[in-house]
Every structure is written in C-alpha cells, then in structure tokens.
C-alpha cells in the first residue's frame, strides 16, 4: 500500500442567528447601496452550518484524531452557546464594532476554536445559505 495521507476530521454543527450588515462609517445611503437588503434596520436571520476540520495523529488505540464528545462540547461552549438564537450584532461582543458578515463570522469562530487542546484546528467553513459559504484557515 502507498504512503499514509494526511488525515483531517470534519464535523458539522448548526446554529440560527440574526444579523444586520451596517456600519456607522457609511451614510444610510451608502449602507443601503453596499449591503442592500442586508442593511434593513431590524436585521434578518440565517440557519448557519458550521464545518470544523481538525488534524492530528490518529491514536492507534481509538482510531481517532480527537474524541468527538470532547470536540462537540468545546464547539458547543465556544460557539454554539454564544451564537445560537442570538443577534450577532447585539449579543456578540466581537460584532459591536465589526460588521457580522459571514467572512468576519468565520474569523471570529476560528479565533474561538483555535485553542482546542486535543487537535490542530485546520479550518472553519460557514455556510450562510445553501448557496453561500465561506472558509478561513487562520491566515
């Protein structure tokens, strides 16, 4: 058989949240022009799908890169509990001054997950709708 490949474990999570794309640095007209419907004043929501990929040695005793229960509870605590059924603009400190686009959401989630102690975080991918998804690998 050939050389072993590099292996990553991927796990999907879901959360629902609202957001509004708007910045105080623009006039109302500019906000409407740049962000379109996403600038509507009361916000709107999405069912987000979060895909987390981690890498590391596969433990020969368990066949696993990371214990799923540990990964799940880490993601639950760091991301799902913080974002699910929240207003990203109002309820998440990081988005008080940063526009909660899904690009910025990816970066925020990566920062929250990068210290997972049991495996290396390779990337996060966030699907905002079935037609839009974004990825961030830390650089």
């Amino acid at each position: 058989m050939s050389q072993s490949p590099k292996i990553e474990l991927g796990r999907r999570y879901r959360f629902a949240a609202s957001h509004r794309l708007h910045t105080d640095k623009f006039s109302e007209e500019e906000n409407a022009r740049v962000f379109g419907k996403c600038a509507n004043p009361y916000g709107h929501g999405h069912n987000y799908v979060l895909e987390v990929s981690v890498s590391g040695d596969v433990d020969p005793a368990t066949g696993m890169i990371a214990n799923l229960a540990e990964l799940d509870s880490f993601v639950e605590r760091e991301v799902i509990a913080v974002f699910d059924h929240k207003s990203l603009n109002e309820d998440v400190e990081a988005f008080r001054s940063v526009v909660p686009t899904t690009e910025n959401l990816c970066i925020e989630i990566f920062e929250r997950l990068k210290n997972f102690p049991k495996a290396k975080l390779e990337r996060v991918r966030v699907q905002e709708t079935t037609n839009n998804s974004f990825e961030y690998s830390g650089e």
Partner: protein
Amino acid sequence: MVLITRKIEFSASHLYHNPALSPEENRRVFGKCNNPHGHGHNYSLEVTVAGEPDPITGMVLDLKELKEILEREVMQRMDHRFLNYEVAELKGQIPTCENISRVIWQLLEPKIKQGRLHRVRLYESADLFADCYRNGLDAGTF
C-alpha cells in the same frame, strides 16, 4: 490544474472495540459504538483527482476508469460488509472514519494513473467526515 470529484455510496456495519482495553474502558471511550453486535451507516465517499485536462479529450481522466477502480477497490470490498471482520486492510484498526478513509486512500492512490489523487472525503453521516490529503505520518495499529 483542475480537480474532478466522483461520489459513491456504500452501506456497511462496524463496531468500535479495542481488545487491549477493559470492557468498561471500551464502553467509556467508544460509547454506543462499542455495542457488541455492531451497527451500520450509509457511507458517502468523494474521491477528488487533480490534473490537467487532456488537450484532445478535454478530460483530466477517464471517468469510466475511475468508476471501475472505485467499484473494484471500494464497493466490492466494503459495500454490505461488516468492516471489522470482512475488510483485511482494517484488521487491527478501529474502523473509524479516519482509518477507513486512510485505507481507501492507500487502495486508490497507486491505482490512479491519470491525474493524481488529491483528496478522499468519507462521510459516515451528514455531520461527520474525514478528509485525506497527500503526505502524512504513518499511524500504528494496536
């Protein structure tokens, strides 16, 4: 370079059990996956090959040939099988997504002559999958 992905699905059963651990430890580490008679999944496999399209055919590879390789190497070996007992390449390993995808990579990699195997993604369910890419360290067996 262009990436081309072919998807196949197979159904198989497995269980997680390490004979070096006590029954209690097996239960603690593997949970429901340690149930003695096993359980099954509908696995979904995405195989991605990288290459330059041939200037005459416009193809990175002959998809029919890839389909035959997947049928021979994966379907015949794993579809409707009990992975722990019926797949020789998994002997001595826990048949997790990580280990199954690595075995599939190692089976396919030398067989793909047109283009180069780029990624093997194996879904155990919609929410759990493993990706294999070129270059990695050998993991041992118990």
